[in-house]
């Protein structure tokens, strides 16, 4: 009798006082129906359990994020070598340290080289038993694996140390972290640029935690809403799986004497059982996901399985809210139908959806967000009230979009009429008859896409500001290495070794130091004017100053900025300069070492070198100045790589490591953007895609359920010769119409929220068309996926066997 005309709304029976025992008995009976109806019942219960379980697993993972980061940060703090106090002087119990991180084929490797300052007991970093002696190293498990693999063959040359052990979990931020602690001699520290001493590991928290950057806080709030709201919607959809069949079963119960309230309680019991099973499935999936997360690394971030623990209060909320919401959703769904003893009577003409309260929600959201314009800009305090207001505004706006969707779908499909092809007619008529199911399934997509679009806008705008022009020119040189040298010979030697490195096509090597003014023989050496002196061959000098001709033996001068006084710098043709420096890097005024700038020296203009820097002072060719005369030179090698040699940069890094254990090579890039923004953008995209797939899964289940309900009708359609393609297209349209409408609404809502967010952080308005296109594309992909997955069962159900009744 399903689908029969309602003879009028059946009169509700007066609500009798129902004892707790009655409630419990009815709920338990519902629970029994969830499993005792044979394969059909189990299939429905399992579908609900898996659906709810997927949502619960995601919620549990989300609730574990705070713990994951807390644990990670605590370990990071415990092994930090930064100290906020006075500089530590070397002593018997101190450790000399230098950062020796490197990069291998886009994988960052953290590392430190160290040597005890005395014979005492220097502090040992977490995760290892003792300080490595010179030539020894501790490695993380991931680095050990990498070094032992074929993939890491080239990397092995960079670590001339004997591995003495593996760093324990307490010394790692995550299981996939590549890190090492290597021991080097005190003498080897002579070739290390930046070094310091420590007397303990770990940073103590300085008072209260720094408040989060307000813009970041806003991102987190909206991000959570965007990713979790669809999950909640999905759980609500999953709780309604198999609803039509259940309603018919309840009608049979009415026939044997169950009253309306009883049937509702039984239905609630059935949902409750499914959702409780879903909680169990979700916990299982979460535990499985935990193991998987513990073994993978995404964008250099990995977590130990033991870090992934849901926050207790949040876990409790999930455990209570999921079954409760399943029951509430079921009871709400039952409101629209009357289960009569002879069948289920759906209200023939469902009430027209009202627009006013659906519009009210997003408008209220906007009203909350508008006053916050500029309130989350840099430097503005991110007060708690503001954060709550922003969160409430974003949630209302996004929920408002989902509330608007059923109205929009209904209003649009109503206008379709009966025109179009048969598949189109079948699909639109189906939607006209019950657009609610389709809208519910799509509403999750709407929130995810709207939120993702808004956040992409925010990222694109903030990211564009964050993306800085570095001034570097990767066309002129691709790498730069600042080589620690103690004299000119070492610089020459380093350049020669780089030149001989595989993959290096050319090298611009500059050796630099300072000279001081001899005319100021004051007692205070710190006030003596100084000028830079750069020694390089002619091809290199052409890259750092504007010169038309150059021969070995030439000297060029570039005026320093005017802070030396009106007469400019002291470095002029024929002028004498002092090359002598004391150990504390101040000019030695007592034992001067003089050099006269040749009178032939010509004044030239500076030129930005490939790193984007402009140099001033004296520029000499090796024929005019012997770099052996420089007391404490610095050497920079700007390297041009041969693009035909793969891994050229890795060979250069290996050469650098051989020159100095703590030296890294920097890649030149024309723009730079902080990694965090790129990571968050990718994470958001992945999250939104995962959510869309989840919604896609629920749409597949809904479509399959609809098809199963219509098994006999499909067989009849086949009997009078309906083509497979006709029905396939009708399934496609039936999915596509609500999804397209949902996407249109989410684009509008997403853009509105995006504009609000940008106004709040005080950024210029910009639409991330690529992000918008991608998200829309993913939405379209979901339509196709749902249709494709629905086709095999559709075709299976289109067999004439469905006509058999015996």
């Amino acid at each position, binding site marked *: 009798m399903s*689908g*029969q*005309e309602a003879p009028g709304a059946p009169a509700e029976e007066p609500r009798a006082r129902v004892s707790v025992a009655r409630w419990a008995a009815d709920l338990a009976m519902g629970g029994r129906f969830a499993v005792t109806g044979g394969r059909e019942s189990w299939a429905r219960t399992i579908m609900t359990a898996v659906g709810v379980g997927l949502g619960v697993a995601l919620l549990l993972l989300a609730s574990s994020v705070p713990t994951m980061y807390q644990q990670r940060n605590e370990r990071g703090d415990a092994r930090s070598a930064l100290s906020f106090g006075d500089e530590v002087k070397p002593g018997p119990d101190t450790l000399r340290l230098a950062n020796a991180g490197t990069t291998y084929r886009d994988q960052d490797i953290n590392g430190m080289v160290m040597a005890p300052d005395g014979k005492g007991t220097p502090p040992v970093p977490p995760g290892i038993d003792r300080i490595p002696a010179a030539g020894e190293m501790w490695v993380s498990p991931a680095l050990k694996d990498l070094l032992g693999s074929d993939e890491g063959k080239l990397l092995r040359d960079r670590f001339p140390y004997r591995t003495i052990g593996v760093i324990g979990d307490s010394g790692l931020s995550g299981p996939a972290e590549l890190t090492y602690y290597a021991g080097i001699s005190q003498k080897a520290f002579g070739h290390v640029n930046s070094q310091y001493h420590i007397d303990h590991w770990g940073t103590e928290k300085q008072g209260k935690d720094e408040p989060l950057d307000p813009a970041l806080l806003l991102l987190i709030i909206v991000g959570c809403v965007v990713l979790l709201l669809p999950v909640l919607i999905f759980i609500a959809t999953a709780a309604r799986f198999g609803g039509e069949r259940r309603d018919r079963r309840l009608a049979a119960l009415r026939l044997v004497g169950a009253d309306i309230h009883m049937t509702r309680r039984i239905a609630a019991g059935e949902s409750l059982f499914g959702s409780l099973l879903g909680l169990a499935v979700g916990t299982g999936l979460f535990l499985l996901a935990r193991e998987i997360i513990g073994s993978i690394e995404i964008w250099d971030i990995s977590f130990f399985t033991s870090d992934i623990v849901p926050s207790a209060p949040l876990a409790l909320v999930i455990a209570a809210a999921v079954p409760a919401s399943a029951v509430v959703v079921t009871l709400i769904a039952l409101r629209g139908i009357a289960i009569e003893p002879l069948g289920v009577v759906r209200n*023939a003409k469902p009430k027209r959806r009202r627009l006013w309260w659906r519009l009210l929600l997003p408008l209220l959201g906007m009203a909350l967000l508008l006053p916050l314009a500029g309130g989350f800009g840099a430097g503005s305090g991110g007060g708690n009230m503001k954060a709550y207001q922003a969160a409430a505004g974003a949630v209302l706006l996004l929920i408002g979009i989902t509330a608007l969707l059923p109205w929009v779908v209904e209003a649009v499909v109503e206008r379709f009429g*009966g*025109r179009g092809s*048969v598949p189109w*007619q*079948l699909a639109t*008529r*189906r939607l*006209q*008859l019950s657009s609610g199911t389709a809208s519910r399934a799509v509403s999750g997509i709407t929130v995810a896409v709207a939120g993702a679009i808004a956040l992409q806008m925010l990222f694109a705008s903030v990211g564009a500001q964050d993306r800085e022009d570095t001034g570097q020119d990767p066309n002129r040189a691709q790498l730069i290495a600042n080589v620690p040298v103690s004299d000119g010979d070492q610089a020459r030697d380093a350049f020669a070794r780089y030149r001989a490195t595989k993959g290096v096509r050319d090298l611009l090597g500059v050796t630099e130091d300072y000279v001081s003014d001899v005319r100021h023989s004051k007692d205070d050496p710190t006030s003596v004017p100084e000028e830079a002196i750069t020694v390089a061959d002619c091809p290199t000098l052409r890259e750092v100053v504007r010169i038309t001709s150059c021969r070995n033996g030439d000297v060029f001068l570039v005026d320093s900025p005017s802070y030396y006084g009106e007469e400019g710098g002291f470095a002029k043709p024929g002028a004498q300069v002092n090359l002598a420096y004391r150990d504390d890097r101040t000019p030695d005024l007592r034992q001067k070492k003089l050099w006269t700038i040749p009178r032939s020296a010509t004044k030239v203009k500076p030129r930005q070198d490939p790193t984007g820097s402009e140099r001033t002072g004296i520029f000499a060719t090796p024929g005019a100045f012997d770099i052996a005369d420089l007391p404490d030179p610095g050497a920079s090698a700007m390297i041009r790589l041969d693009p035909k040699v793969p891994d050229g940069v890795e060979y250069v890094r290996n050469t650098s490591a051989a020159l100095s254990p703590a030296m890294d090579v920097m890649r030149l890039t024309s723009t730079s953007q902080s990694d965090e923004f790129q990571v968050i953008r990718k994470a958001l995209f992945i999250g939104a895609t995962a959510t869309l797939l989840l919604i896609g899964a629920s749409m597949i289940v809904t479509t399959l359920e609809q098809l199963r309900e219509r098994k*006999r*009708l499909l067989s*009849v*359609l*086949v*009997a*009078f*010769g*309906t*083509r497979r393609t*006709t029905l396939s297209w009708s399934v496609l349209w039936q999915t596509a119409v609500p999804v397209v409408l949902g996407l249109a609404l989410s684009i509008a809502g997403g853009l509105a929220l995006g504009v609000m967010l940008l106004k709040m952080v005080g950024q210029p308005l910009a639409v991330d068309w690529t992000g918008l296109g991608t998200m829309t594309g993913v939405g379209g992909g979901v339509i196709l996926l749902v249709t494709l997955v629905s086709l095999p069962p559709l075709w299976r159900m289109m067999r*004439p*066997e469905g*006509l*058999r*009744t*015996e």
Partner: protein
Amino acid sequence: MTPTGSLLIATSLHKTYGHTPALDGADFSIHPGEVVAVMGPSGSGKSTLLHCLAGIVKPDSGSVHYNGRELTAMSDTERSGLRRGEFGFVFQFGQLVPELSCVENVALPLRLNGTKRKEAETRASAWMERLEVADVAHKRPGEVSGGQGQRVAVARSLVTGPRVLFADEPTGALDSLNGERVMELLTEAARESRTAVVLVTHEARVAAYSDREVVVRDGKARDMAGVR
């Protein structure tokens, strides 16, 4: 009745579902414009015979000739085309598409054959008029009575001008008054358009509208022409 001049002839049909034989050497024939009632107890194989005759189900063995063509040798697409163009169907229940209006339901076979919507609905309206259900044309199946729904289904089965109409317990879900009216209209319309009707029923009252009866028992069909 001999198969000479028959429109549809089935010979020695065998069909088994799992281990249960549904047809065990059934023969059948029907002439243009003839109404043949296929009778028999529940589970005797009447519906299976109808499905085999209509090319919905392929028999395990035996042959079905329609207008000189062997149905069992046809591909699924060819059989589907035949069902769309030359056969009509009425079933006991669950046959109208609930989301389409009654007139759209009746027009559906025409539209599946490529007829334009307007023309299809005009022809559908004419048939609905003839079957006395014009007043429910724009209602949905869920909004009409069982008898009206069945008459809509008959209109749909005849709208393409089929040469054979297959009716499987067409009045099974109706009361006697409604059932008789449906049968009157169905047979009247079929005879006028010289449509052969294969009428599966277990009710003698319904079978009375036929020209000839075939009884199916244990998967075998026996022509009752001489018995009657």
